[in-house]
């Protein structure tokens, strides 16, 4: 019983990353009709916003300590971050410790800017081009972006720990009268994603801007005829989608150390999530994200693996096939979206 609850929790937590990425991807699909293979790269850039902030906060000056030796036998240079020197070791240390949450503030403007530049500079020219061209250009962009990151940060994963206070485990089982623990940061990630998803949905539901965008998703031409400048709004939506992917990346860094190809690792999966959810459906993407997360967690249980060996390797794809064959347009897809 514990084991099952734990895997459900784990699935929700995995699913929140899938859902966040798929949400942005489907926003771009839905509004702009663009197949964005660079969406994983946006997630990765978000993660490297956190890495960058951590590096910036750790800019250090060096003191020579004669009592210690470095690897060549010379006197060791001890590094002290400027932040600690300016704000005192305690407060300065706390700032460095909270680098990842702080990076959210840092990442939002950067990601929106990246989104704007991408849309205005490149994607815009591809609205009326075939999907194949969109795939080629965004894939090229994704490769170029990740190579740039690799050039500056290397290929190895980079450790970006969560704040001390949010590390460790919490006894979540106690809430329901049981006893099992779960990492605090992963719980934080789950609630964070719920907040972001909620914010996006309310934004689309309750603002005029959101209403126009939703109308545009349903029928772009009609909205254009009303004399509303839908293109500018779509640019903003692209910025928002980039920001969502970026924030998902920032908060993901303590869970797994980021590296330059993490975007590609998520790319295929996020496409599967979006399609299983149904093209052009935001609730579908979120639902599919959580569903696949939970199923993936279950499939990795020993009890299930011993019945069907290797099921955890392929569960996502098996589910995708079953759903697409039984529900032609995924869970909640609309008719006629990307069926040609």
């Amino acid at each position, binding site marked *: 019983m514990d084991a099952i609850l734990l895997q459900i929790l*784990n699935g929700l937590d995995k699913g929140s990353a899938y859902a966040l990425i798929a949400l942005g991807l489907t926003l771009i699909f839905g509004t702009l009709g663009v197949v964005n293979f660079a969406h994983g790269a946006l997630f990765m850039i978000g993660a490297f916003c956190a890495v960058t902030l951590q590096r910036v906060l750790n800019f250090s000056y060096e003191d020579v300590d004669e009592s210690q030796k470095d690897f060549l036998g010379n006197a060791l240079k001890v590094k002290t971050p400027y932040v600690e020197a300016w704000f005192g070791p305690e407060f300065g240390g706390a700032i460095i410790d909270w680098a990842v949450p702080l990076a959210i503030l840092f990442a939002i403007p950067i990601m929106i800017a990246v989104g704007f530049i991408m849309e205005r500079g490149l994607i815009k020219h591809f609205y009326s081009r075939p999907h194949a061209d969109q795939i080629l250009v965004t894939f090229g962009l994704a490769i170029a972006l990740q190579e740039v990151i690799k050039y500056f940060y290397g*290929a190895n994963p980079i450790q970006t720990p969560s704040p001390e206070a949010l590390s460790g485990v919490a006894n979540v089982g106690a809430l329901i009268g049981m006893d099992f623990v779960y990492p605090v940061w992963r719980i934080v990630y789950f609630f964070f994603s719920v907040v972001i998803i909620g914010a996006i949905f309310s934004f689309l539901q309750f603002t005029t801007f959101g209403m126009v965008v939703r109308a545009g998703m349903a029928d772009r031409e009609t909205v254009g005829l009303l004399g509303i400048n839908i293109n500018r709004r779509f640019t903003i939506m692209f910025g928002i989608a980039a920001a969502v992917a970026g924030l998902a990346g920032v908060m993901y860094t303590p869970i797994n150390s980021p590296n330059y190809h993490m975007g590609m690792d998520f790319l295929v999966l996020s496409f599967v999530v979006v399609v299983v959810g149904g093209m052009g459906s935001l609730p579908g993407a979120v639902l599919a994200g959580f569903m696949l997360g939970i199923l993936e967690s279950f499939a990795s249980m020993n009890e299930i693996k011993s019945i069907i060996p290797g099921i955890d390797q392929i569960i996502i794809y098996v589910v995708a096939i079953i759903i697409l064959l039984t529900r032609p347009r995924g869970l909640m897809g609309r008719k006629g979206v990307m069926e040609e």
Partner: protein
Amino acid sequence: MSKSAFSRRGVLKSGALAGTGLALPTIFTASSAAAFTNDPTGSSVTLGFNVPQTGPYADEGADELRAYKLAVEHLNGGGDGGMMNTFSSKALQGNGILGKEVKYVTGDTQTKSDAARASAKSMIEKDGAVMITGGSSSGVAIAVQGLCQEAGVIFMAGLTHSNDTTGKDKKANGFRHFFNGYMSAAALAPVLKNLYGTDRNAYHLTADYTWGWTQEESIAAATEAMGWTTVNKVRTPLASTDFSSYIAPVLNSGADVLVLNHYGGNMVNSLTNAVQFGLREKVVNGKNFEIVVPLYSRLMAKGAGANVKGIHGSTNWHWSLQDEGSQAFVRSFGTKYGFPPSQAAHTVYCQTLLYADAVQRAGSFNPCAVGEALEDYEFDGLGNGKTLYRGDDHQCFKDVLVVRGKENPTSEFDLLEVVEVTPAAQVTYPVDHPMFAGGALGSCNPGS
């Protein structure tokens, strides 16, 4: 029909059939001038450094490349000579190999067998490389080793830890300096016994491919032999990035030791996840829960950050070793590049030197002669103490380091500390050991 498989650009260069302006077809046969593939007849000899330059192991590949360049410099008499000064064999003169200047070509394995073989083939066919070396994973090493056997050049493996490389997939033209899964287990087991006792329940998480399996098998056998119970062996998909769903069941499994048979990015993530789930603070059956990472790499340990503290594993070599050879290598590498070398860098540097030395001693680049010179060759001064290149399986037998994540690192390189140097005798196994059975070296192939 010609039997010549691969080009010998060297011959042609010096042959200089130019001048006549005529197309002059030549067919090389076994009886032609060259007796083996890519016989360097000019004033230089070309080595092929085939390392991952893209993909997850690109940093390790870059470090290997640095070591190769250093080795070439030393072989050609440049720099401070590095380990050439401490190497027990004094055959190398610092004037290249057999008086020929050492040149090199580089390629990208992408950590994919196909790409690695394509790259190695281009080195052999286009650049006339007489030896291929490098790599950062066992799949690639075995694939390229097979290719070199067919092509008739020597393969000096880089970082490859699977038992199979010198076990069921061993080849007469392939040589491995790096240690393997069995040796890791043999070195680790006694240390673990001392630290954690004989009554332990181990839970294995294993990368689901051949390297992972051989290591899992080795560690399980060694720990079971000293009284531990293996609670479970769980295979994790290679493509996993988040291991939480595999870690969660460990919590209530009754296990008190977690063995992570992962390498590279997988290792960083699974270890990070394990620590996240509070396994290190956990107490099971009145004992502290422990995590073991049998194959450590300092470059990768960096990605796991503070999570490695206090966690034991094994490694082929570490820059903090105090012997003369290691010191010399760290000095020349560190002076040139500004940071200490990794174990991958060390092993490929050694391999390059060992190859050059064998050629020098054999007096020929012929793979069969080189192979003979390397087989059952005993040497010292390359950082791992007295070492034997066993002739029966082309595996090096040398001391293995048991290391621990350092609690208070003084710099970004100072992540591991050596706990014990397990002597070579303790990790040596008979050549017909069941974990290595099923293959045959075959006979050396000089090509042509």
